[in-house]
C-alpha cells in the first residue's frame, strides 16, 4: 500500500490515537497489499477508537473558576429577576442568554471529559434549558403549564414590575430563586457527572493494573 494512501486511512482514527500509533501502523500498512478487507478493517477499528476515546478521555476535576462562574450567573439572574423596570420581553431575552451561558458552561465542562460525555451532557443541559424557557413562555400565555404560584398575569400588567407590585410578589421571587438555583445545581451536577464518568473510567483502569 502506498504511504500516501495509508496516511489517508489513518484519519479514520482520533488524533490522540494517531499521535501515539500512527507511525508504526503506517509502517505496517506499507507492507500490506491494499484490499477492500484491509480498508474496512481500518475504518471499523478507527470508529471503535473514536468511541473509546470519547469515553476514556482524561477528565479535569471541578475547579473554583467553574463554581465562581455558576454562582455569578445565578446572582445576576436573581438580581435581574427582581428589577422592577424591565419589560417581560427583555426578561425573557435575559433568560435565554442566561440559559445559553449555563448550557455553554456545562458543555465546555463536559467536553473536557470526552466528546461522548460532552454530547450527552450538553443534550441534557439543552433539554433542561428549553424546558425552562418554554415554561416561562407558556406561563406568559397562561395556557400550557400551571406554575407553582398563582396570578401569573405579567402580560396583562404589561411588565415584570407590574407583576412584582401585585399580590404574587413573594411567590414569584421564591419561584425564581428556586428555578435559578435548581438549574444551576442540575447543570453543575451534570457537568460534574460527565467529568466523573471519565475520571471513574481512568481510576478503574489504574486499579485494574
Amino acid at each position, binding site marked *: 500500500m502506498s504511504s500516501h494512501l495509508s496516511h489517508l486511512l489513518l484519519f479514520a482514527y482520533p488524533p490522540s490515537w494517531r499521535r501515539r500509533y500512527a507511525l508504526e501502523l503506517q*509502517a*505496517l*500498512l506499507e507492507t500490506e497489499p491494499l484490499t477492500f478487507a484491509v480498508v474496512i478493517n481500518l475504518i471499523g477499528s478507527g470508529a471503535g477508537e473514536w468511541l473509546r476515546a470519547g469515553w476514556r478521555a482524561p477528565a479535569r476535576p471541578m475547579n473554583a473558576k467553574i463554581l465562581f462562574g455558576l454562582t455569578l450567573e445565578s446572582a445576576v439572574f436573581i438580581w435581574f429577576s427582581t428589577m422592577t423596570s424591565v419589560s417581560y420581553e427583555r426578561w425573557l431575552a435575559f433568560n435565554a442568554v442566561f440559559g445559553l451561558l449555563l448550557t455553554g458552561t456545562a458543555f465546555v465542562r463536559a467536553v473536557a471529559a470526552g466528546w461522548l460525555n460532552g454530547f450527552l451532557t450538553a443534550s441534557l443541559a439543552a433539554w433542561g434549558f428549553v424546558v425552562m424557557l418554554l415554561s416561562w413562555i407558556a406561563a406568559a400565555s397562561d395556557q400550557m403549564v400551571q406554575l407553582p404560584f398563582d396570578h401569573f398575569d405579567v402580560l396583562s400588567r404589561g411588565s415584570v414590575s407590574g407583576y412584582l407590585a401585585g399580590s404574587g410578589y413573594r411567590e414569584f421571587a421564591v419561584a425564581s430563586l428556586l428555578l435559578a438555583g435548581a438549574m444551576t445545581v442540575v447543570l453543575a451536577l451534570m457537568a460534574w457527572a460527565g467529568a466523573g464518568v471519565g475520571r471513574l473510567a481512568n481510576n478503574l483502569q489504574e486499579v485494574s493494573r
Partner: protein
Amino acid sequence: MSKEKDELNDLGRFSEPALLIMISLADGPKHGYAMTEDIEQISGQRLGPGTLYGGITRLEARGWIEPLPSDDRRRPYKLTTSGHKVLKHRLAAMKSMAKIATTRLADA
C-alpha cells in the same frame, strides 16, 4: 475465576486478537509486522492491521504489554509481568476447558 481472566474477557471483540498477540509475544518482543506473520503461522488467521493495533492499544492500556525503545518507525512490544500472569491464567483455563470437552466427547 481470577480477576485477570475476567479482564481479558472484558476486551470484547478484541479478546481473541489480544490473546493471540500475547501468545505471539510470549517468546520475546516483536513489532507489528512480525506479530502478524507469527500469529498467521500459529493460528492460521491473519489479523487485519486495524484489529492488530486495536488489540495492542487495549493491551498497552491495561499494562499487559509495553513498547520498547526503537529508532525505527516499527516499534517492538514485549509482555509485562502482569501480562505474563494474565496469559498464564488464560491458558490454564483453556487447558481445563479442553480437558472437560475431551472427556465429554469420549463419554458421548
